[in-house]
Structure formats: structure tokens, C-alpha cells
């Protein structure tokens, strides 16, 4: 009798596939990286998303908490790329590990061409975030419909090429990408953060998956992104937890997160 859970077989297989992938790409672009071992060493493991609003996070303990802050919004418009830098105040204790986040928006009135040149230009804009102080990782936040995936793949490849090798690359991921959607598999990223909030009418399916297999065997296995206004009962034990707060952070909101998720 073969009592084998898929993990036992597939993890070595995936590791082999990953190593072949690394070899295959190494000669061309030096972006292929292992994911879990490296990203899980990034500390602190509780990360607060600080979006484009006034955020005074001077109350956090920088040994326990990192800050992923919206640093740039990249608008894709026709063939062009328009960058809006963060214009809202952000205060953190000295030495806080920060993750600058670049949010990518497609212009509604002038839809983007999504060309390779546009992907490259956007990557150049985002890569500058890696040069900021105390930055070990850059995160890209985007929505990719099926037809836009090739564009974002190109963008991430271009971005990986332009970032210092030691700087990690993170993306936010629709939860559905983390449950059996293979497009994350060969992206040059160190982590994909499944967004476990505002999940629409697939919420039950996603939470069901979480209560069972979790997001194992995907790039999403070691992280999760949650919101303070949507409690997740069966949150898997992830090594890095990102938390969004619909309004500016304060000590009470943070304490509640730490109590609820035992951080």
C-alpha cells in the first residue's frame, strides 16, 4: 500500500525542477533563486503594510516588526510609465527593516499597451527602491488578468536583473494564484504573499483550501497577507505574516493583531 501524501513526492520533484530551472536560466539572466530557505530567514516576521496615508509607526518594536510601505505607484498608461512617489508621511523607529512596495495600476482611461518596453521602464522605476536604506526586499503589488501575465512576467524578470542580487523580490498574490494556479511557479521571485482578504465570492473555496492543504507546493507557502477587519480562523502557520489595516495603524490595532495571531 502506498500511503503517500503528495508533499512527500512532489516536494523533492519540485526541488529538482527548481534546480533545473536555476541551471537553465543561469546563463541568461541571473535571477533564478531559491525561495523558502532565503525568505524565511528575513526577520522580523510580522510585517505591517503602511499604505498611502499618514502612518506614524514609531510605537512599533523594530526587532519584532517590519514595515512594508507603499513607496511608489506606477501607472501604466498607453506606452508610458508614470510614477507617483509616496507623498504621505511615514515615521518608523530607527533601524526598522522596511520593504518598499510598488503598486502597479493600469490607467482606465488610456489602457496600457503592455509592451516589453513598458515592462522594462516600469522595472527601472521599481528597481530604484532597492537603493533605499535598510531595504532587504522590494515588493510589487499588481493585479494580473490571464492576458496580462506575460507582461508581468517580463516586468519581474527585468526587475530582478536590475536589483542587487542580495535584495529579495516579493509580490502580492491573489489567493487564487496560490491554489493550483501554476503561473507563479517560474517567476523570479523570492516570495508570493497570498492576500487573504477581500477575496470575493471565492472566499469559501480559499478558506477551505487553507483549512486543508494550505498553500503548500506553491510559492505562497511561507507567507500570508491578512487584514485586521477580516479574521481568518484557520490561518496556517506561516513564517512571514503581512497585515493590512484599513485605516492608519495605531498601538491598539497592532496589539489586537499580535494577540489574535499569537505573534
Amino acid at each position, binding site marked *: *500500500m502506498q*500511503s*503517500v*501524501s503528495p508533499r512527500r513526492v512532489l516536494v523533492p520533484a519540485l526541488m529538482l525542477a527548481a534546480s533545473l530551472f536555476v541551471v537553465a536560466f543561469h546563463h541568461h539572466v541571473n535571477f533564478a533563486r531559491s525561495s523558502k530557505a532565503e525568505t524565511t530567514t528575513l526577520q522580523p516576521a510580522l510585517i505591517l503594510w503602511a*499604505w*498611502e*496615508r499618514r502612518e506614524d509607526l514609531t510605537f512599533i518594536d523594530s526587532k519584532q516588526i517590519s514595515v512594508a510601505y*507603499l513607496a511608489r*505607484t506606477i501607472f501604466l498608461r498607453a506606452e508610458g510609465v*508614470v510614477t*507617483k*512617489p*509616496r*507623498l*504621505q*508621511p*511615514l*515615521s518608523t523607529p*530607527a533601524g526598522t527593516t*522596511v520593504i*518598499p512596495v510598488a*503598486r502597479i*495600476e493600469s490607467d*482606465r*482611461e488610456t489602457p496600457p499597451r503592455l509592451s516589453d518596453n513598458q515592462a522594462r521602464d516600469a522595472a527601472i522605476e521599481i528597481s530604484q527602491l532597492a537603493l*533605499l*536604506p535598510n531595504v532587504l526586499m522590494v515588493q510589487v*503589488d*499588481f*493585479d494580473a*488578468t490571464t492576458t496580462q501575465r506575460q507582461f508581468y512576467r517580463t516586468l519581474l524578470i527585468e526587475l530582478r536583473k536590475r536589483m542587487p542580487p542580495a535584495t529579495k523580490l516579493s509580490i*502580492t498574490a*491573489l*489567493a*487564487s*494564484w496560490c*491554489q*493550483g494556479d501554476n503561473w507563479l511557479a517560474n517567476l523570479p521571485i523570492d516570495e508570493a504573499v497570498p*492576500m487573504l*482578504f*477581500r*477575496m*470575493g*465570492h*471565492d*472566499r*469559501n*473555496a480559499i478558506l*477551505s*483550501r487553507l*483549512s*486543508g*492543504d494550505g498553500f503548500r507546493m506553491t510559492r505562497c507557502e511561507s507567507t500570508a497577507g491578512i*487584514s485586521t*477587519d*477580516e*479574521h481568518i*480562523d484557520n490561518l496556517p502557520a506561516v513564517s512571514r505574516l503581512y497585515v493590512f489595516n*484599513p*485605516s492608519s495603524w495605531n498601538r491598539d490595532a497592532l496589539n489586537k493583531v499580535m494577540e489574535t495571531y499569537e505573534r
Partner: protein
Amino acid sequence: MIRRFAKLLAAALISFLLLAPVTAIACGPFSLDTIFSFTVHPEYPLENFARGDIGLVQPSYARSYLYVAYRYLNGNSFTAAEQNALVELWHDRLDLRWEPAEEQSVKRWLAAREKVVSGGEAPKIDVYRSREKPNEYETYLNCQKDAFETAADTLEARGKEWGIKSALLKIWVDAQDQVFANCSEGKHIPDLLPADADPSGRADRQYQIAAANFYAANFDRALAGFQAIAAERSSPWRTSAPYLIARTFLRTASLGRDEQKVASLTAAEKQLNGIVGDKKLESSHENARRLLNLVRLRLHPKDVVHELAISLAGKKGDPNLKQDLWDYTVLLDQFVGDEPASSKTTAAELGGDALTDWLLTFQSETPESLAHAIDRWQTTASVPWLIAAIAKIDSSNSSADALKRAAAAIPSDSPAFPAAVFHVARLNIAAGRFNEARAMLDGLLNKHPSHFNASTINSLRHQRMLVANNLDEFLSYAQRLPAGMSWNDDGREIPADASEVSENVKPMQGKPLFDADAAKIFNEKIPISLLKQAAVSKTLPQHLRRDVAQAAWLRAVILHDDVAATELVPTLKSLVPEMSPLLDNFLAARDPGAKEFAAIYAWLKFPGLEPIVDTGIGRSTPLGEQDSYRDNWWCSAAFTANPDNAEEGAKKHAAKEEMPPAFLTRAQRANANKEYAMISSLGAGPNYISRQVVEWATSHPTDARVPEALHLAVNTTRHGCTDKETGRWSKAAYDFLHRRYPNSVWAKKTPYWFKD
């Protein structure tokens, strides 16, 4: 130029200093939401709302919409220009519009410069600068449009005065390059010109040095420089300098030490008041007034909220409506946040004006807000307070009848009419006056449909559904035309572009669908006996009958109601002909157990079957195909939704717990409750299916379908909804398959089982 500069400065600084109400974070899978009634903003096109078609105003609308509703409820209106300004504001926020306004001005400056310094690479100018430690992750718009316009104008003038090829002009440009080099980083300060240099060149250089210090964040030096220029009677910049002194104070307040802020803002206010009061500085008055508004916004925000509220509520033809409403709503967000009930700031503390009081009261859900709304209505007899009060009240309140009478008297051409009639009907239903409600709603929906937008019609149809006389009426009002479809991945309820809609969903566009309230009633309040009738009712279009029929059949199977399941087969075959062979097998089965297995076998092959009716578009993958995102073999009812944990977006569109439709008998309600309790106790669909397959396989190991069914059962645990029990059933099916049929093709196709 000056006006543009001031407007830009004001907008940029407000955005810098205050909340940004248009932020969004993306999340969720890409699934198209059907919106029957918009909750965050009115339905598109927003121009309709701006011109007074306000429909059933929702307290959950953003405050800029509620302000517009207030104006219309009060009998006021907006000019065409104001309506355009409103729509522009809404789209700026909803579409996250961002225009790099400096780009053209930078180009103009570089073009002017190119005429003097031909050849060589033009300097790269980035207008944003990062702050110093400990604020190094913040950026601010340092060099604004007006700086480049002024530089280009001055260069043109000096070219005429000194000569385009003159050495003086060349060194002027070199100095200006240094000034703009500070825009993004560093401290690049030009040197003073020698005492014997051209006087106008020296005056310009003095101004360039002060400006360079300003952009390099050397505010003390910039201040001293501008003060010296203001005192220099011969300087062509002396009339501009007082305004720049005020700007330096303001910049110090924004970027300097916290303890400096109030003093710097106070100094800026004093300086600007001095400019406005000085006729000799008339050329700076307009700029100074705008900057003064901004300074007051920061120094006396509560006063400004109050002043803006008075201005917004009273004026018609406000040329600054967009900016005023922008500032007002941003300040309210700052003081009150999303939830007025939990805010420490009250309307009274913000000046007690009628607009702010109404907005915060209308949005609040506390009992105190109802009492206040009733009190204000009784005192003022005004329509806005009537709507605020009746929207909150329940039928048992002693003021309910008086409010109903007042609302019923609202004329049909009033902007308040949709809200008034909706709440009168709601109160009648809650009070058990079904006949009154029915007659009223029939009159509204049949005689006045043009008075209502799609969101309001759907809200009225919801009420009419509750007081349906019979199943046919219920089915008639349960189906509604969506007010919009949206990816809604960030809660903004932005309608989806037609080009973004998938081929599977396109056929559903423009067709009636079930809203969440109707689906909830189908799934929890209506027994199989009535679902059977619904499945054949011509009141429902075919695509809805199909959904009801599959739900009814599968529910009957799960609940072992063989008679109902058998009776439903002809209907299901006609609506889902691709299931016919499997349904024939179901009919041919000799005993209840065989029938059940035949049904389970069919379910294994049709992952889209669910014992429930879907909301909106629902599952768009064909019934016989596996959904890529694991919406297979029934998910939704496997989990009892906890409203406290539900996502924010879902809460707004979720069906509230409502009374069962009036036509249901007591016995029908009891049966429905019993059926729902059984269905919702089953857990995840794949667990139930696998258990049934294993049980049948154990008792009928020679059934030729069994190996395949075991394989498919394991497959459901991989591609369907799962929970902590799934591994157990996956393993059981896997073990049985490999133990009993080790050499079958199905065993070979099943190398793994799936566990948590």
C-alpha cells in the same frame, strides 16, 4: 500662471499633509461580482447622481456623494459646471487618477534653456525629493510647476535684455541649473555675483540663492534670503518675496521639527494676512489667499471644516466646489474616520453646522443618532432630516407612523421620492401590513419605473419579493437585472469594462439573476417541494430554472427524497441535456441505494452541481468541467458564514437575515428549516461524496463503475473544497482503490491521495 501654481500647491500640500482618501489595496481573486445595488458610491454614470437622480441614498456612500444628496434633498441643485466638478472629483478618487502636472513645465524650461545652452546633455530634473532621516522613506513635491514657468519667463526676458548669447545670460542659466539640481537631492547653492556685476544680474542671483536654499531644505537661509530681497527696493523680486517668505514658513512647518510646526504655521498665517492687507502686493493676493486657506486648514482645521460646510451647503455656482468638497471630506475623514459612531469627534465639535450634523447622523447606526434625527426632523420639518430619520427607524418606534405619513406626502418628482417610498414600504412590511406594502410597491414598480435607477428598482423588488402572494410572484421578484458588474477586487465597485468580461460570462450580461437575498431564501427558506415547482415555472428564464433545477435535484438526492429527485429528472434533462445518460442511469436504478450511487456518480462527473442556488453570475465554468479555482463539488454551504469574520466587501452585499416570504405556509417553513439544517451539517462536498463512494464500493465491489468512482472521489479531494476531514476520506477512497483494484487503469491514474 500664479493661479495655476496656487491651485497645484494647495492640492499637492493637502495631499501631503492630510489623508489620502483614494488609497486602495488590491486583493482577492479575479471573479466578476454582480452588483444589484451599489453601496460605496451611486451607480454609473455618476453624472446622473450629480444632476439630481440620487435614487435610494445609502448611508454607506462616501461623504462626497452624501453631500450632494443633502443638497438635493434640501431643494438645492448644482450648476452644470459644478456637476462637472463633482464628477471630476469622484473619478479622481475612484480611478486613482494621477497626473504629473510638472512634466510640461519642466519641458518648457528645458526648451527655453536649450536656446541659450545649445549642445550637451540637458540636466535631468526630478521634481520629488526624499526627506532626511528619520523620514527618509517620505517623498515630497519639491519643485513645482510654477518654478519652471517662472524660470522660463525670466530667461526669456533676460535674453531680450542681455542678449541671447551674452555671458551674463549663460551664467544665469548655470545658476538656475544649480537651483533645480536641488529638486531631487543635495545642496547646490550658487555663489553671489561680484559687487561690480550687472545690478539686475546680482538681483536675480540673490533670488536664485534664496530659491536654491529653499529647495535644498535650508529653510533658515532661504528665509533670510527672501527677507533681504523683500527689503531691497531695487530688486525686481521684492513684491514676490513676501509670498515666498510665507511659503518658507509653511515648508518649515511641513518638513521641520515637530515643535516648530505651530510657530511656523502661525508665522505663515501672519505673513499671508499681511500680504492680503497690503495693496502694494496686490499681484500676490490671489496666491496668498489660497495659501492662507491651506495654512488655516492645518492650523485651525475644525474652524475650516465648519466654514467649508457652511459654504458648501449654501452656495450655488461655487467655482471652487471641487477643491472645497475635497478639503471638507478629507478633513472629515481625518476627524471622524470611517465610522462616525466610534469617532471621538462629534458634529457639534466641528462647529455644529447642519450639513456636518446631517452627514454624520445619517452615517451613524447608533440609537442616539436615530433619536437625534427624529428630533431634528421634528424641529426643522426638513426633507433631509425626514429621510435620515425614516432610514433608521423601525416600525415599533412611536415616531414611525408620523414619519411614514410625512414620507408618503413627498411628491414623485422630488429627489427624496425613492428613499421615502422605499422606507414607507419597509416599515409597512415590518409592521405586517403586507397588503399596503404590496399595493404600494406594485404601483411604484409598474407606474413609476422611470423614477428609479437600477439600484433602487432592485431594492424595491427585494421588498416586493418578501410580500409575494405566491411562488410565482416570488420568482418574479427574486430575479433582478444587475445594476453593474465589477471585479471589485479593492472594494471600489468600479464597473468592469466590457472587454474584460470572459467569454463564459458574456452570455449572462443583460440577463436577470438572483441577488444574495433571493438566493438565501431559495437555499434556506424554501423546501424541495416548492423548488420542484420553481424548476418548471415559466416565470423564470431558462438559465435561472437550470440553476434551480440542479439545486433541487441534488438536494433531493442528498436528503434521500427519491420521489422528488425522480420527478425532477425530466426537467433537469431538458435543461442540462448533457447529463441525460447519467440521469437515465439514475432512473433505471432499482433501489434507493443504487439511485443514490447513480446520482453521486453523476455528481462526480459534473463538478458544478451544487445543492444550492447561486448568487449573481455564480460559477461561470460549465457544469461538467472542473473550475480552475476549486469551485467544484459544492463549497459555499460547507461553512457557516460568521458575519463578524466576513470580509468587508461581502458584508455590504450579503443578504441580511430576513423574514421568510409571506406566502410560505408554516409547514413549508418547517420543512425548509429541516432541509437546510441537514444540508449545512454535511461538511465539505468532497468529504460527503468520497464517503458515499467508499460505502457503495464496500457493499458493491463488483460494480464496474466503482474503480472509476474511487478515482474520481480522490480527485474531488484535490480539486474541490476541502477541510480537515478531507484527508481521511481521500485516503479511504485511495486505499480501497489500490487494495481492491490494484491493476486497474483507475488505480494507475491515482498515484496520490490528498491530506491536510
